[in-house]
């Protein structure tokens, strides 16, 4: 099993969810996140007042999939979240040892 964590633009969330469902993946967890990568902070002016903008709103997705679904899921995310501009986000993939469904104690891929 593989855990996929993706940091994406908030505006791409609906499209990414649709793409994942189309790829056969339905269970995801979504977090509201803030951060910056190579996009650095800057200052904005609003009607004479100054506001610092150093963290940008992002959405973080977490999903755990079977090994064979990993590439499909990653491709689905990239296909819709990519604009080619700075700030499109990142995807991290890591191995998961166990999954347990709390309701009935099912274990392994069946619990996904």
């Amino acid at each position, binding site marked *: 099993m593989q855990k996929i964590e993706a940091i994406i*633009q*908030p*505006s791409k*969330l*609906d499209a990414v969810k649709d793409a994942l469902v189309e790829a056969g993946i339905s269970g995801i967890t979504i977090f*509201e*996140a*803030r951060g910056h990568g190579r996009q650095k902070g800057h200052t*904005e*002016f*609003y*009607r*004479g007042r100054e*506001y*610092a*903008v*150093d*963290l*940008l*709103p992002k959405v973080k997705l977490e999903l755990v999939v079977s090994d064979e679904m990993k590439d499909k899921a990653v491709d689905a995310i990239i296909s819709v979240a990519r604009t080619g501009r700075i*700030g499109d986000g990142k995807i991290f993939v890591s191995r998961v040892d166990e999954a347990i469904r709390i309701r009935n104690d099912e274990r392994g891929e069946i619990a996904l």
Partner: protein
Amino acid sequence: MSGVTARGAYERRMAEIRGLFESNGDGLRATAARSALVDEFVLRFWSEELQADTSLGKGVAVCAIGGYGRGQLFPCSDVDLLFCVEKGMEKPAKEPIRRLSQSLWDCGLQVSPATRTPGDCERLDEDNPEFALSLLDVRRLGGDAALFSRLQDKSLAKLRSRDGRAIGEALARLTRERHAKFGDTLFHLEPNIKDSPGGLRDVNASHWLHELRSGKRLILPDGVEKGRSPQPLMHVDHLPGDRIEGGELRDAVAFLSAVRCFLHYRHERDDNILDWEAQDAAARQRIGLTGRAGSGVDAAYWMRVYFRHARVIEKRLLREAESSGLQVETPASVKRLRGSNETGFRIKAGVLELEQVSPRGLDVALEPEIVLSAFRAMAESGACLAHSAEDRIVAAIPLLSANLEEGPGLWRRLAAILTGRQAGHALRAMHSLGVLELILPEFHGIDALVIRDAYHRYTVDEHTFVLIDTLHGMAAEPAVERGKSRGRDADKGGTREPQQEMEAWRVRFGAILAELQNPALLFLAALLHDTGKGRVGESHATESARLARSVLQRLEMDAYDSSQVLRLIEMHLEMSAAIRRDIFDAETVRAFAGRVQTHELLRMLTLFTYADITAVHPDALTPWKAESLWRLYMATANQLDRSVDEERVHTRVSVGGTGFWRKDEKIARVLALLPGREMEMEHFLEGFPERYVSTRSAETMLQHFEMAQRFDEDPFQMTFHHGATQSGSVVNEVTLVTPDRPRLFAGMTAALAAWGMNVVTADAFANQAGVVVDTFRFTDTFHTLELNESERERFLSSLRDLVAGRTSVEKLLSSRRRPRRRSPRVPVETRIEFDETASTHSTLLQVITQDVPGLLRAISATLSDLGFNVEVALVDTEGETAIDVFYLTLQGRRLTAEQEKELRTALLAAIEKNSR
């Protein structure tokens, strides 16, 4: 009896009780039957103990307490037992009590046994007031009768007489804490029918308060020992109140008892949440409704029945608390009003009471003006309405309705209620008494309406009141910050506790509230924004706007204000939709700014969105959403000032080379008002900034067109509108339609300054043909126009003389009364900015400075003196900050760097001179 046999027998009997409930739907009977059944088992096991040890016959009384003591055991409720023992009997009784409890557990009963001597029960344990409360319903099941009498007549009598007040206070506190967990409202989409306000616990609380106050003890049957089966005992039997009220309460308790039995059977545990699936099933099975034979009912209808009953219970509790001098609601801080004795009512100790007879000799409750003033006083002070006043208003509703006059007077009264800091409190009272529906029948459709989605927590009407509460709460002073050293500024987000971060956002958004020109419009839009949810239609925002239109007509609100309210309602979802898009994308911002068009609407929409999201659910507005909303607000505000000159009206646009022409929907509407003269109208509109079209109604544009047709008679066409008084200030409006000429804008501002008028907002637009439409909205510093109607004509002709050059600015200004200068509360530093990228043919000048009288005149006179032409002007005020934007040209060209430098120096000097 063996454990297995006992459990089998208990389950069989429980199945019979369930069968009976499923056939007759009588929850009260089912709870009494279960209580009797448990009595039987408790006594059977106790008699087994007695047989084994006859010495237990004296010195131990077996009692039921709490709900079981009242003879009401819901299918999965715990069984609370009290073993009242003589001093010295604790030890010998310990093992038999353990065995009895074990036997009951083996039958599947959740037993909570407590062993106490009568002396233990004499005092209130402040850490456990719940036990003292459960003792108020004690009932003997068996055992030592003399000991029980002593417990009852001496110990508990002592507890009541000595600690009765403290128990009452503890009960009030527990009730407040419990209600607070539910946001102090009974209008939840998935209510807990036991614990939420208006739930079964409130029935018991009413009863206990009554008993503690009156000293009257509820006499319960003496268990099955005497061979009598206990009757269902409802607390309502012992509560005061007239027959109708008592009947309503009885029905409410019967309904909720049936629902709780239904939920226990459905969930197979003591789970009292009435979730959506349970609501559907209960409605299908007509749970709690009379005439169970009929077919199922609609879930929304069934929930309204539930809310009606819960309201009865809540009302009963509030009245009982009032009689006991206790507060079961989180107390609103009651503000003392100046002149608290107004005509027709008075406020004493936080309670508003109506007088009997009005100055006109009528019952005060029949006078709409007095009744609405009373609600205004509640909104301003947070005072509660006395229950006798509530009854009188309810009884007076039909006649109040006949006496109610609509129009501007009603709007003034409603606006005064809406802008009171405790408006939500007053509106809830008006809603529950039927006064709100009397003024706004449109509100009836969302009364206790449950609309299901994954986010909302409250019914539609309650969501509306929470939204209004939230808006008022935004104006509150910032909470004292704790742990400041750990925190970071809201700009930077990140390391703060979410609660502190949200408080910082509240304060930041709250500052926008102080900048609104007419907050009552925002509150009216808030009140009406979801009324469309009660109707079937394309979208609720459109339906709500449709309903609001008829409200605005009845209130005879002026065209500008009406359009603000309608646009807010129509657009109330757009900002939350926009923050889901890419708010850093210029196109998203441009498109949104194109929809909003004015700073005032943007401010109101931003506040509305903040409060609307907050009112959905206490956790719905996260720092993340607040930040996105703020960014969109800032970006849009910047965009609004920088795009006006570029985006111009073209009445005919070619579409993709197909040869078709399309017209903007708004333009099509204006043209429809002038059949046969469409071409002339198109010519008039051509070349105006798009903001002109999107901020004016079709009727207003038609009026401007007609004014432009009368240039032959008088080239200086002017309209004046005397605004209604709102929150103590009047905003007037004057519009000038005239062929363009130099110094027009400067002339108008000078004339307004000479008359002591303070410009709040202004805009100046011109079309391709050089027709200028300048609109100024201003307050009247000396109340000249308000006090003397004859002065209005003199004022207008003086404006006309000045722009026509028939009189000089100097002459007018020499007669000018200089208003007294207040020192600024928030000093604003002057900033002058130029932007060459905002327009292809003009230079944008933005002046941000302290708003003082005469400022606009000083700026525009400087511009004229240096020969600059004002292509577009947008004048705005935010609190004490003036933000004036001008698109300038000099001899048809953009400004050079040298000209900008010269202008900056001249403006700084003029602003400085004016501020002295």
